[in-house]
């Protein structure tokens, strides 16, 4: 598996050299079963210029502190937040730092079953030999417990409640029973280093339906959209430029166009214009990730349709598809924003955005 062939290698492969450097210089005590000390794990996520470790997560460093300390205790870590706030990226980075392995991942969904979480069987062998460790096919949770590693559970709230609750005894008693086996194999005790990072988004179904028993076994950390305009703009610019390059677009995105785009996203997301006017928030998520994808689309349109970097008019065209999706109400909110807010802003790109408002579909 060479890197060129893989679309997106896991974090521990992408940042293997950084992890290596951190491991070499890491002198602080490590919690049992951890690949790095807490301090080094923190540096891996928030960055360390001296060691040449990139900053990979833009947000409050205290969030990382709390997350790491939680993982070193007996409670699981639950990352909640709006979609597109880099929860999954964060869980991947933390798992890579703590266990050196971020691939023990369960993807939650309506069809997730206990088999996919705990273990299943190789049925041919099961019929031939009966239940044995050979015919047992371990799923991420069993592997994480047996190997002492962090298990990631993505979108946990999208699973049925009874499936979610299968985490209860592994989290509290740190043991997983395999009743089909007999003898010492029937109980898999968690080795040091095992813990669970779950993610849940607040839009889908929220965490309200989670059982209180399971909630109690997690510490909650809410991941927020990026608070600072300049930081978000930089991030969108960097990510969009990288995406555009991969799409074969030969000009970088224009900063002033991105400024208008990011401002629009931030104001709609917070429901508050820069002058303090309160507005309706769209029901779609105006996340940074969405902003990046709009910026990408704007650049692609500009380059392949007209051979330039993309303009404010392209933003309007792309917004209809991403920000408003199929909701007529959101389209109305967007239109109102373009009509009244964009009109009052200074600068040619805002003028262009206002002038292009008729490109929104409908009406």
């Amino acid at each position: 598996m060479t890197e060129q062939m893989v679309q997106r290698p896991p974090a521990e492969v992408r940042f293997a050299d950084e992890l290596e450097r951190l491991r070499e210089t890491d002198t602080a005590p490590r919690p049992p079963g951890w690949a790095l000390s807490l301090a080094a794990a923190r540096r891996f996520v928030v960055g360390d210029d001296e060691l040449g470790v990139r900053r990979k997560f833009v947000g409050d460093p205290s969030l990382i502190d709390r997350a790491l300390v939680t993982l070193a205790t007996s409670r699981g870590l639950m990352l909640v937040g709006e979609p597109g706030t880099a929860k999954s990226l964060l869980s991947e980075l933390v798992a890579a730092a703590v266990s050196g392995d971020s691939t023990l991942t369960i993807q939650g969904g309506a069809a997730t079953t206990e088999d996919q979480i705990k273990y299943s069987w190789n049925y041919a062998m099961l019929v031939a030999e009966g239940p044995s460790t050979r015919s047992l096919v371990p799923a991420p949770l069993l592997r994480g417990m047996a190997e002492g590693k962090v298990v990631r559970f993505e979108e946990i709230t999208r699973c049925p409640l009874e499936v979610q609750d299968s985490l209860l005894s592994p989290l509290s008693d740190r043991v997983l029973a395999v009743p089909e086996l007999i003898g010492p194999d029937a109980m898999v005790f968690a080795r040091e280093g095992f813990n669970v990072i779950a993610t849940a988004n607040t839009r889908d179904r929220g965490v309200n339906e989670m059982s209180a028993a399971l909630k109690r076994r997690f510490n909650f950390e809410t991941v927020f959209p990026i608070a600072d305009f300049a930081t978000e703009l930089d991030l969108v610019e960097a990510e969009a430029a990288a995406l555009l390059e991969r799409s074969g677009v030969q000009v970088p995105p224009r900063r002033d166009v991105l400024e208008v785009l990011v401002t629009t996203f931030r104001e709609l997301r917070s429901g508050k214009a820069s002058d303090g006017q309160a507005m309706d928030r769209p029901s779609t998520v105006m996340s940074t990730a969405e902003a990046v994808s709009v910026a990408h689309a704007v650049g692609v349109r500009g380059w392949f349709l007209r051979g330039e970097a993309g303009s404010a008019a392209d933003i309007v065209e792309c917004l209809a598809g991403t920000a408003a999706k199929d909701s007529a109400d959101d389209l109305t909110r967007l239109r109102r924003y373009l009509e009244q807010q964009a009109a009052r802003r200074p600068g040619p790109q805002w003028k262009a955005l206002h002038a292009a408002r008729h490109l929104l579909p409908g009406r």
Partner: protein
Amino acid sequence: MTAPVPVLEDAPENVPGNVAFIGVRHHSPACARLVRRTIAELRPAHVLVEGPADFSHRLDELLLGHGLPVAIYSHHREADRLRSSWSPLCAYSPEWVAITEGRAAGAQVRFIDLPAWHPAFADRRNRYTDAEERYAEVTARLCRKFSVDNGDALWDHLVEIEDDDGLAERLATYFDLVRGETDAGEDDTAREAYMARWIRAAVADAGNRPVVVVTGGFHRPALQRLIAEEGAEEGWPEVPSPPDGATGGSYLVPYSFKRLDAFTGYQSGMPSPEYYQRLWESGPEAAADALTEIVVTRLRQRKQVVSTADLIAARTLTEGLARLRGHRAPARTDLLDGLVAALVGDDLDQPLPWTGHGPLTGGAHPAVVEMVKALSGHRVGRLAAGTPAPPLVHDATAELERHGLDKAGQVTLKLATERGLARSRVLHRLRVLRVPGFERDSGPATGGDPVMEERWTLAPSDDRLPALIEAGAYGASLADAAAAVLDERLAAAGSRVRVLAAVLFDAALCGCADLSGQIVGTLRAGLAAASDLGDLGHVLATVLGLWRHDRLLGTAGSPLFATVIEGSVQRVLWLAEGVRGGPASADLERLHALAATRDALRHAAGPLGLDREAALAVARRVAAATDAPPDLRGAAFGLAWSLGDAGDAARAVRGMSAPGVLGDWLAGLFALARDEVIATEGTSEDPTILAVLDELVAGLAETDFLVALPALRQAFEFFPPREREAIARGLLERRGLRGSPRALLRTTADPALLADAAALEHKASALLAAEGLLPEERPA
């Protein structure tokens, strides 16, 4: 954390003479400890403290035995502008420790900074506020370097929680770095030059004995530099006196932890005063233990479940965080982070307040709010007996005597006379200051109220004096104090626009309608966040009246009210475009709001620079919006018409001719463009809107007419009787009939009775028809 603190190469190591400069952060217990230790070790001849120099000779007042926190309240009035500022002191203020320990060590203690009235303090309300914005960039870089969230966490990390060994050097390095990269403004330069003069004089006076200087750390490097230079002046500097014509003074007032706290107070210093009080009293471990207990108690009082397991988890997390961050004992954010991670089992709606900076906003998680409150505490200062009283007490007594209002009983004031207005203003000012014993029984209730007389009941009581002393914190005179209170109420009103309107009207009654420029910003923000069209209309109408006409209260043309008008118009237009909904009966409040907007655009567009074109565009869009409620569409159509864009009225009314919506649409139209409708009646325009309407109503089937009737009646209520008569005349003419139009407007019997009769008749004929007792074809 083991990252070294960066050191500036050219940091001045030696200071001339025998001066110990202690650069502090205001309200920092660690700095206070350093001050105490330094004074105890050096036994200095002089202790110089950053504080108002004009209060130096009254330091004894501070030592009367008050309950802390107290503040030196300074107010100053120049050219009709009031400025007030506070210099708050609490038990762990380095300045307070310098004063008390300096005195105890037998040193001469002086304040050496410019007085509060000086222009260098023009924008400061709190002398000891953190001026972080001056060096935000450096702080941000250091925060990145140490991986902490903000300047407060950085400060805890570097100073409060670290060992006291080497604290002086650490502080010096920190502030050298901060100052080295930041330009001091003109204000700071003036203050530093003045403070340096005091230090030079003290050094000269002290001979070989040491001098201790306690100032904000930001000033320390500059002061060291200035002292090394030769000073031209000899001897103690003069305390500058205020410019001619300016008045002012300083008094001690009780202060509170709530006002000290950056999470709740305005322009304040370090957050969480209760935490730092306990840190000062008993160290970080004890502070963390005590506050954990307080938080848990508070949460349990609020019926939140906090189990023993949660407490163990919180403790473990706090310890773990402290260790990860390299703290010898849990710091403030370790404690808060540990508590929140263990106790809050939900997603949060907004970031944790201690990861950012500034006041706590609404919508925070209740448990988080309790934590912040517990660390904020609710200690309130108390002045010792015999502390000099503020001048407001004397001013109010004198004003009451001068205007003959110092007795009990009823008074009637004629507002149109100068004396009456002056007396009324005195009473209103006392009323807004909440001084008991002044009740208004009657008087004008809104801006347009044609009432010229006020009745008051005066009832002197024992509560009056304490209330006045408290109100004295707001200002030296009744007018200042009332203006300050109104400022405060305006700021607190936020986006509750009806409250805003009440405050603005009070301001007019008190003769304080020229509130400070700062308030304009607050007011704009409040209006911009308002969400109720009716309320906004109410404000707009009130204020427009006061701005245009009110010569009685003297508010005509007031710039403050102009701001309100501008903000409201903008917001009404924004909100109007967002209203969605099917047919519903006309919302009169909403229509009044649009009517007020029309008046503002008509009468104030020129002087205030309101954007007529933008308003017209909104009106056209709303009028054409099929998903907007009919009354609003009618009103928008009327708004456009009254602004000069008639459109095709006849076509518009035909478009809205369904019986369920016709009346409501007309109500909107008539509310906004009644004059225009009547004006077209006499002209050659054909067909006029009323003619079309006549035709439509005549064409309605019986049941449809009954459906449309109530709303139609309501719509025509907008016409006064004389215009209704003109409409009736047109109706007769159109049918070629003669007769008195007035008779048409009056029914001889109760309409309900007529309706009953018609219904009965209808029922009877239906019955007859059913029984075959009537011919099939009824005569026309």
